[in-house]
Every structure is written in C-alpha cells, then in structure tokens.
C-alpha cells in the first residue's frame, strides 16, 4: 500500500518536473520543434522578417562596420550580398531565387562547426523558423528594401474591413483590420466616468472636475465628447502636462550635474515650453526655435530663450578638469539628444566607430556634431563655492531676463520682482573646425568634416545653409522620414502606454518594428498635412473608437494578445510619479495651480542632499531646505530637480536622472513605491486635509466615506467597496473614540492649516482616504 502511494507521488512529481522543465526550456531557448511548426508568411518581407534576423545575427561581422568585417562580405547591402565572394571565387552569398546555389543557405543549415553561420563562438544561433524564412525569402527573389523608417511615410488607402459599425475614424479602420485578421473583436466603449478620467489624465495630468463629468451625462454624443476634449486642450494644465514629458526629452534640471552639482537657472526656458504648448505652436516651429532660434532672421529674445534646449546638458564644475575634454562631451550630448529626441535614432555608437547596424558612419556622426560645435561656451569658470558667492549660475553664453521684460515681451516667464535671471542659450559665435575624433577621443582628431546629415536617412538639400537653421529645416522637411513618425509615435505612447514602435527612442534597424506600420504612416502624414498641430493629433486619436475602448482584459484577449499589441482594448497603466503626486494634491484640494516660475522644494525626507554632497558648503545645493506654505503644493513639474539626487518620490516611480535625454520611462511595480504611497508626508497630509474638508462641511455629513471615494476615484463606489470602507471607517473611529488609538499625532501631519474637526473622525476618515490613495486603480490610468 505504502509502495503504491510512493509510486504515485513519484509519478506526479516527475510529471510536474517534466512540465516545469519543458516550460523553462521554452522560456530560455525554445525547443526547435516549436519554431519548426510555426507557419511561414505567404510573402516574406525584407524589413519585417529578414532584416531583424540578419541584423541581430550577422551584421556584427557582415554589416556596415568596416573594421569588424570578415571575409569582405556584407549582408546589409544588396549589391554586396549578391556579389562574388572574395574568399570563394565562383560562389555567391545570395543567389536570388536559388537557395541551393546560395552560400548563405548552406552555411546556416550545415552541422559542420567550422562552416556554421553564425559561428558557434559568436553565441548567436538561428532557430528553425528563421532558417526557413531566409530560405523562402531567397526563393522569392531575395528582395532588399531600404529600412522601413527611412522610407518617407505615405497615406495608404484605408483598409477594407468585414464590418464597419465600430469604426469612428480612420485610425479604427487600421486597428479593426488587424483584429479581424487575428479573429479578434474590439472592446466596448469605456464607461463615461472612466473615459473622462482617462482623457483628463492624458491631456492635463490631473483628474477631471465634476463639471466635465456632468457635462457629458450618461450617454455622451460625439459632439459633447469633442467639446470636453477641447476644454481640456485649452486649459493651461495641458501645457504643463506636455511640458512634463518634454523635460525628460530635453534633460532639463535645476542643477549643473557632475561632482558639485550646483545651481543653475534654466527655469525660464521651462516656462517658455509651457507657453509654446499652450499656444499650440506647430511642432516644426517648436523644434526650429529650440534648435536654431538664435539664427533665425526674426530672432528675438523669445527665440533665443528657446535655444536653451541645447544647453540643458550637465556641465562640470569639478576642479582640474581639462575643459577641452568636456567641451567635446557637451557637443556629444547635444548631438545624441538631437538623435534620440528628434530623429528617434541612437547615434552615440557612431561616436567611436561606424554604427554596426544603422548605416550611420562615424563621419556622419561628426558631421552632425559640427552643427553644435560653434558655441562660445567656456565651461564653468568657477567652482561651486565661488559661483555661489557671486550668484553666478550660468555658463556663457546666456541671456539676462529682467523683471520688466517678464512683464512685457516675455510675459510667460514668471519672474517676480528682484534681480534679473540668467539663462544659458546657444550661439554660433565661435566657429570651430570639426574633425572625426578617433575612437571618440577628444584629443585624437582625424579627418576634417563639414556640417552634414546622414544621407541614408535623407540627404541634406544643397539649398539649405549648413548651420543649425539648415539642420532645423532638414529635420522638419516634409520628406524627412523620421521626425513626424517619431513624435506621433511618442504621442501615441503617451495615450496607450507604449508606442506603435515600442522602442520609441530607436527607429533604427535594431529597434522594434511598428505593430501597425500603415497606421503610423497615415497619422504621421496627416499630422504634417495639418501643420504639425499637436492638439489636432491628440484629438484625432482620442476621437477614435480604438482610444475609447474599455481597458478590461477579457479572457479571450488575455490569451490571444496579453501585451495588447493588436489594440483590442484600451491599456491600463500606472501613472508616472508627477501625475500620482499631482493627483493626490488635486483630489485633496491642496493643489496650487500657479503656473511657472523658479522651481520649488516640497517635502522630501530630510538628510538626502546632506549625506551625499561633496562636503562642507560646496555650492548652494548641499542642504535641502523645504519651502513652506503654498509652494509645497505646486504641480510636480515645478519640483526642484537636482541631478545627483532627484526628488525621491519621482525616481521611485521611474523618473530618469536627467543626466541625458530620455524619451520613455519604465513602468515598474516595486515595494518602494508601496512605501512611498503609504508614508510620504505629501500623501498623508493630503488624506488628512481631504478628511477635514469633508467633515467640516456640516455637523454630521451623511456619507463621508462615499464622498472620499468619489472625490478620489471620480466614480461611485460599488456596494462591496463601500461596505468594506465603511466597516473600516467605523472600526477605526471606535478605536480612536475609545482611546485605543491616539488620533492627535496622526492628524497633526503636514504643515497645512488644521480645520476644526473632531480628531477621532478626522483620523478615521484620513486612514480611509489613505486606503483609497493606495489602491491600484487610483494610481492607474484605466
């Protein structure tokens, strides 16, 4: 008997182990069989099927990098791949239409370790599916095409779908077609309260007011919805929300970075960005002013201020640096930022060598570099201590903005009375010869280069001046294949949690391919046709049925498309740190909606700057002294950004350091986030103030818990939700009233004035609010 049981247990364990092993094996390398069984596409596409394989497995030795090339063979160019092999006269790597005569075919199928490609020591290997794809592609004629992102976008005919009832605008046709191809259905429209909250968060970074909710009623028409979107778009909070994202892209900070990391005054530039978004400046112009405002014929102080974009990079104040080295580092930063932020191409690899994948040569890199290499910058001439003593917070060149200018021409700069402020800007007053820097070393110049752009992306027209104005014209040219796609993709990512190209920083060969290429192209062309109008683009997307879907995962969708690549539902994703803090402030009624001005210092755990500073009083950012009063409740984009120690309640939620340009944030889920939401004074105080405000409304508000819930989540609670919270509230209240718990210290949290409410009730309701602030739904855009 015993034996039998043991046998069964062993059998079960063996089975479990086998299942697990199989599963793990699949996760790590994938058994050949599962690849072999995969269905090949009817028409093998070079860009979407073949190039990712070649690029990932072959280009290291058979790609654009001349120094690493083996056997003189490159597979990234048609001509070369079809040519006779240097080492094997009479043989050809690829013979279109004839796999058996193609050396590539034999090399990928052979078992001979000396012949095998990729070679075993490269740690790369093709799976069965990839091999078959290459075989079929050669059979079909081995057609090479330019990299998809370098072919200018075109508006294709809208796809014909089997059904059309769901479609609200052009976007939906592309999405529905793809869903139908995969035998899936779109989701229903989201509930009105969800939709308004979603639109409000996406456009303003703040929860909606009751006004907007009421306006829409139970069953909003296209017209009322359109009206509400327009209202959000015209609120000043729109510009703040867009600016918050642009600050990452532009690596904005209130400190210089590096060793001493002392103070700088770039905030008037940030005020200009808010102004530009709110006045809906065309994206082409927005870029042009930031890249080259100083060189425009109409250049005034506003245009020059915009060029601060080029000077937002870190600047060292470390004693003993070789300025030449850092001057080069600053130009490198500008060049990389231009590539990542605007072109969606990571250029930095080409700083030291020909780009292995993207057909951007080292020479191309320094041609771009030379556009940014003529500025009369000196590097900070004083260390942090001297700079602080003399209130010298900018490295030349800079402009000075006075309080009276801030009342007139530059009225968008929120400068209070007092001394003028210096903002670093760009100029071309020190033309330098630019050379290729061998291996990227500032002290090892090679060939001399002229300003230019990578011809493979889009040749630089002869008619354009070879300066930053020309560069701006090149980048905003209707034929530039990248600029519009890149920003459209980022805006899409803002509204859907990820872009149609999920690597929004990399449209190069190694980046991801778009899930909906035709849709991306259609939107990109449409965006340019409509004057690079961002508000238009946002509204276009928001008016689609695709955007307005529910975000629930049905079992069907969860199984078929867990990553939501087919867009059969709206996404749910965690808000960023700024949005979470602003949400808490707004729902508690604490939010100070003042716009612009010098950055502020809200609550921060004490000691952080002090523990890591350079010791003594090096510079003026060695100790963190929080502000008081109203300044504690400003929107988070105004929180002081010290590069070496950015605000922890932002970095815990994946904010970057701003040491360099970043176009996409992670959306992690960590225990430190849970702790921050539970114990950050900012949140606890908000819960307290919200509780007091509700209790102060009357002698005995009927349903305080319901009111807290509705205020925070902008919807009515479900029955079970309400009963859970009510039970909690009454239990806690009883404990406080019976003296089992002490309310006094709890309700004393935060500087904000105390209202005259019953401490026990306040504490109980505060903790109830704290529960709601810690719900996944609260910090999620649904």
């Amino acid at each position, binding site marked *: 008997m015993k034996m039998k049981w043991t046998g069964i247990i062993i059998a079960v364990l063996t089975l479990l182990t086998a299942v697990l092993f199989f599963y793990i094996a699949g*996760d*790590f390398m*994938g058994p050949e069989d599962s690849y072999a069984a995969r269905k090949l596409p009817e028409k093998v596409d070079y860009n979407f099927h073949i190039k990712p394989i070649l690029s990932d497995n072959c280009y290291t030795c058979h790609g654009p990098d001349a120094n690493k090339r083996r056997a003189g063979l490159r597979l990234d160019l048609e001509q070369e791949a079809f040519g006779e092999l240097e080492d094997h006269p009479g043989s050809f790597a690829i013979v279109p239409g004839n796999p058996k005569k193609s050396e590539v075919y034999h090399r990928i199928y052979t078992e001979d370790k000396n012949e095998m490609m990729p070679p075993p020591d490269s740690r*790369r290997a093709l799976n069965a599916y990839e091999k078959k794809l290459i075989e079929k592609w050669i059979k079909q004629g081995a057609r090479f095409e330019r990299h998809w992102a370098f072919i200018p976008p075109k508006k294709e005919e809208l796809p014909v779908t089997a059904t059309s009832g769901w479609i609200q605008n052009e976007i939906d046709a592309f999405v529905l077609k793809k869903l139908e191809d995969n035998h899936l259905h779109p989701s229903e429209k989201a509930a009105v309260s969800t939709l308004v909250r979603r639109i409000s968060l996406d456009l303003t970074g703040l929860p909606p007011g009751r006004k907007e909710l009421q306006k829409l009623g139970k069953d909003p028409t296209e017209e009322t919805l359109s009206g509400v979107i327009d209202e959000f778009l015209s609120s000043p909070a729109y510009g703040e929300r867009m600016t918050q994202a642009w600050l990452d892209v532009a690596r904005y900070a209130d400190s210089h970075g*590096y*060793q*001493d990391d002392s103070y700088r005054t770039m905030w008037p530039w940030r005020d200009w960005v808010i102004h530009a978004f709110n006045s809906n400046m065309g994206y082409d112009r927005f870029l042009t002013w930031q890249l080259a405002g100083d060189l425009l014929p109409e250049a005034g102080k506003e245009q020059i201020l915009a060029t601060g974009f080029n000077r937002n990079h870190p600047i060292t104040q*470390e*004693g*003993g*640096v070789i300025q030449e080295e850092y001057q080069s580092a600053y130009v490198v930063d500008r060049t990389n930022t231009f590539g990542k932020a605007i072109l969606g191409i*990571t250029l930095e690899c080409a700083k030291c060598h020909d780009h*292995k994948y*993207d057909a951007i040569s080292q020479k191309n890199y320094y041609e771009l570099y030379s556009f940014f290499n003529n500025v009369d910058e000196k590097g900070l001439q004083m260390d942090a201590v001297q700079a602080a003593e003399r209130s010298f917070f900018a490295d030349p060149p800079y402009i000075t903005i006075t309080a009276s200018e801030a009342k007139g021409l530059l009225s968008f700069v929120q400068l209070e009375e007092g001394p003028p402020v210096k903002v670093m800007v760009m100029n071309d007053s020190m033309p330098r010869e630019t050379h290729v820097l061998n291996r990227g070393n500032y002290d090892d110049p090679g060939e001399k280069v002229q300003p230019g752009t990578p011809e493979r992306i889009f040749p630089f027209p002869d008619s354009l001046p070879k300066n930053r104005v020309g560069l701006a014209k090149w980048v905003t040219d209707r034929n530039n294949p990248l600029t519009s796609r890149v920003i459209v993709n980022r805006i899409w990512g803002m509204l859907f949690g990820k872009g149609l190209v*999920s690597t929004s920083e990399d449209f190069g060969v*190694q*980046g*991801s391919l778009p899930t909906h290429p035709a849709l991306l192209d259609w939107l990109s062309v449409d965006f340019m046709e409509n004057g690079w109008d961002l508000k238009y683009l946002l509204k276009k997307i928001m008016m689609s049925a695709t955007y307005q879907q529910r*975000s*629930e*995962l049905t079992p069907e969708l*969860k*199984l078929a498309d867990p990553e939501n690549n087919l867009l059969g539902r709206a996404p749910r994703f*965690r808000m960023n740190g700024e949005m979470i803090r602003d949400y808490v402030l707004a729902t508690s009624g604490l939010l100070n909606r003042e716009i612009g001005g010098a950055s502020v210092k809200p609550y921060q*755990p004490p000691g952080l700057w002090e523990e*890591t500073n*350079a*010791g003594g009083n090096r510079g003026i950012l060695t100790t963190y002294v929080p502000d008081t009063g109203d300044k504690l409740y400003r929107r988070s984009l105004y929180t002081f950004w010290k*590069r070496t120690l*950015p605000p922890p309640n932002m970095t*815990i939620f*994946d904010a970057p350091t701003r*040491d360099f340009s970043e176009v996409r944030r*992670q959306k*992690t*889920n*960590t*225990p*430190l986030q*849970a*702790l*921050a939401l539970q*114990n*950050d004074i900012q949140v*606890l105080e908000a819960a307290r103030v919200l509780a007091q405000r509700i209790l102060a409304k009357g002698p005995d508000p009927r349903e305080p818990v319901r009111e807290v819930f509705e205020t925070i989540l902008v919807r009515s609670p479900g029955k079970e*939700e309400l009963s*859970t*919270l009510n039970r909690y509230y009454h*239990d806690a209240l009883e404990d406080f009233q019976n003296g089992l*718990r*002490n309310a006094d*210290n*709890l309700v004393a*949290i935060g500087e904000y004035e105390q209202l005259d409410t019953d401490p026990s009730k306040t504490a109980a309701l505060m*903790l109830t609010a*704290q*529960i709601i602030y810690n*719900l*996944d*739904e609260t910090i999620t855009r649904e």
Partner: protein
Amino acid sequence: MENKQQAPDNPLKVNRRHFFSQLSVGIGSLALGSLLIPDLFDRGKDPVRGNPIGIPHFAPRAKRIIYLFQAGAPSQLESFDYKPSLLTRMGEDLPDSIRKGQRLTGMTSGQESFPLMPPAIGFKQYGQSGAWVSDYFPHIARIVDDICIVKSMHTEAINHDPAITFFQTGSQVSGRPSMGSWLSYGLGNENKNLPSFVVLTSRGEGNSQGLYSKLWSSGFLDSKHQGVLLRAGKNPVLYLNDPDGVSRSDKRHLLDQVSSLNKLHLAETGDDEIESRIAQYEMAYRMQMSVPDVMDISREPEAIIKLYGEDCQVPGTYAANALQARRLAENGVRFIQLYHQGWDQHGNLPNEMSAQARDVDQASAALIIDLKQRGMLDDTLVIWGGEFGRTNYCQGKFDPANYGRDHHPRAFSIWMAGGGVKPGLSYGLTDEFGYNILENPVHINDFHATLMYAMGLDHERLTYKYQGRRFRLTDVAGNVIKELLA
C-alpha cells in the same frame, strides 16, 4: 466575472504568465516563480535571445560581494605600493621618460615642475606573504595573508566623476547599470524580504567629493535592480516608517482593506499587474520588519563590537557600515556597496590620510576576520579601493610635512579578499617611481570580468539588449585575470 481564469486546454501552450496564474493564486505563485528561476519575471524585451542563458554560467566561487569603496582615491604610495627609491629621489623632477606625456588634470598641469615626493609614513613587511603595508594601516597589515593586493590597477579617467562612474558601471559616461544591478539582474535575489543590492555611505574628515544616486542606478535594467540606499538612523529606507498613531497591527488591518479592494478590481479588470501590486505591498510590509531587524546591532556580542571598534556603535560611521555589511551578507543580500568619502588629498595629505585610514583600517580588517570566523569568507568577495591613484609628485608647494598629490590613473592599488581570490598574493608591479605598470596590468574592465567570473558569470554572456545594442558591464573589453583566483 470570476477571479479564476479559464484553464486552457493544453497546458504546454500557455505562456508563463498563465502558467503561474494557474499554478496557484496570487503572491505564492510570484514567489515560487522567482525561487525556481531567478529573475524569471525580468526576461527583458526579447524573450528568445539576448538574455542570460543558463545562469550561473559556471560554478560560482562567491555568492555575494561587499565593496568597500574608498571615494576620492586613496594614495597607493602611502598604503600598499612601497617605493623606497622615492626617498632618495625626493624633490627631483619627474623625468619625462617616465611621464610619457600622461595628461594631467587642470590642478597640476600648470605646475612648472613635478617634484617627487616620498611617502610620509613608514612601511613594513607582514605575514607569510611578506607584503608591504604602510603604518597608516596596522590592522589591515595583520590580515595580509588573507587578502590579495593588486598594485597594477589602471583607468583612463582622471577626474572623480567619470572615474567613479567607470568603476561602478563600466563606463565613464552616466546611464549604464551599476555593478550591483548587473549582479542582481543576473543572479536574482536570495532574500525575499530585502533588496538584492544595498548601499551604505559614510564620510571621513578628509577632502571629499560628492556621491550621486546614478552610481547605484539600474540604468536601463528594471529599476527593481537599483541599489537601495540604507541610511543611518531611524528611517533606513525612504518612507519605511509608518506615521505616529499607526501600529503594526493597525497597518496590517489597513493593508488588508487595500488588498481586498485591489482583489475586487482585479476580478473586474483581469489585469495581472494588480496581483503584482498586491505582492509588492506585502513585500513592503515585510521590509518594514526585516530592514530594522537587520540593522539592529544591539544583540551583537561585546567581542564583535571590540573587533570592529567602538565607532561601530555610532550609526553612519564606516565601522558601523562595515558591521552592517556583514549582517546584510548573512541575510543573503547579493551586493553590498559601501562608500567612504574623504580620500581626495590634494593637500595636507599626511594629516588627512592618517585620519581617513583610522576611520577604515580596523573595521575593514575586522570584516575579513569576522567573515572568516563565520565561515563566510569563502563565498563572500570583499573589495577595498578607490577610483584611481595619486601622483608620485607633489601638488602645490613642495613641503614634505604638508604636501598633496594629484589624481593618477596609470597605476594604483586595491585589495580583495575571500570569494575565491588567492589569499596572500601581491599581483602586478609598478616601476620604481610608482608611476607606470611594469607587469600584469589590470584594467577596470578586467577587474569587472574577474569578479563576475568569481560570481559564476561570463561577462560576455551577461548582456541586456537596449537601444538596439547588447550591453555588458565590461562593454566590449575585459579579460578574466585567472591568476587572481585560487
């Protein structure tokens, strides 16, 4: 909608998310997943390729690292690289044939001469190995047979920020993941109640340079791999402490409500991310106990306090952090990073250096002794060193009683112990000026490759694909220095 998902027909067809949501409900499944396969949930963007395969790559010697970083760069000439010939050459100008055009920092590039300056302190030989150690480090001198001194470290950086960034991330330019993050990514976490990478800082009285959170940043890796700064005092992890008026059981009760409401919403939305959020809240709750527990040294016996020195009872000192490091190591933390600031002796070196050495000497040696007596030294790799060395010539006025030394990247010393490193070995040789390396140079990339090897990782295989490129801690270089390993 029901909370349970429909079981697919063929269990072998489901992806891993479903696999585990079928296995058991909620938190248990997440924990199980990560126990079975470290970092299962972190496969990155490319589930098929570009991820560490079959980790560890080979049998690890060490399971964890304690890195005692001496920020500011201590002088090798007053610590472990004894150069008696500098005594006879005192005041002579550094010959060009030795300097060989080495670029200098702006602090001494303007100097008209570079007068050689001998060490301010005596050296003696110790132990079976006969290693030379300066009189500033009497305690470390006593453990020389347990440590391996590398006298031939070199770097390209000549300023603090890029140099320290290079050591921590393998690149002079910021943005790459820190060493600790790479190891957390590659090897996962041993303790579910503590982060896998923690950072402790302290500061001496010497001239110091700032530290930056980017040094323990996870860069493009998932931010769960970022170093968590454990701070001295009552709030060791940011936002760890509950407000007054919320007891442990009150907090449990409150979190139960959060959890039950989250579960309701999970049932409505079907989004597994909510399940993960619930798990993170539980981990946070456990950390509120486990972190103060591990940091509480009140039950350490008198002998241990004596071993590390009385300072170890003062939170925030190097000695306290060294003791803390041992406790964290015992609790399975993968990478424990200490920084001690104050080693930037551009002037007043004799005074500052002796004070700095007093801060760290006893406790550094104590840590080795303590790990050894617990049998933990075998699988704990301890590293002691700064970001570059210091010049053999004097910075500023020539005054043997009060001189300074500038930054020197071409040769400097660090030491390592435990974790499979050869004890009692002195590795590498510099010239009689202590300026250039004559034998066995060790670049930072080699250093990284070697310590990854000790941890069972192939530095060429632990990669992460980001922005179209496979990144490694060692970038495109690095050789494992097998001679350093036992």
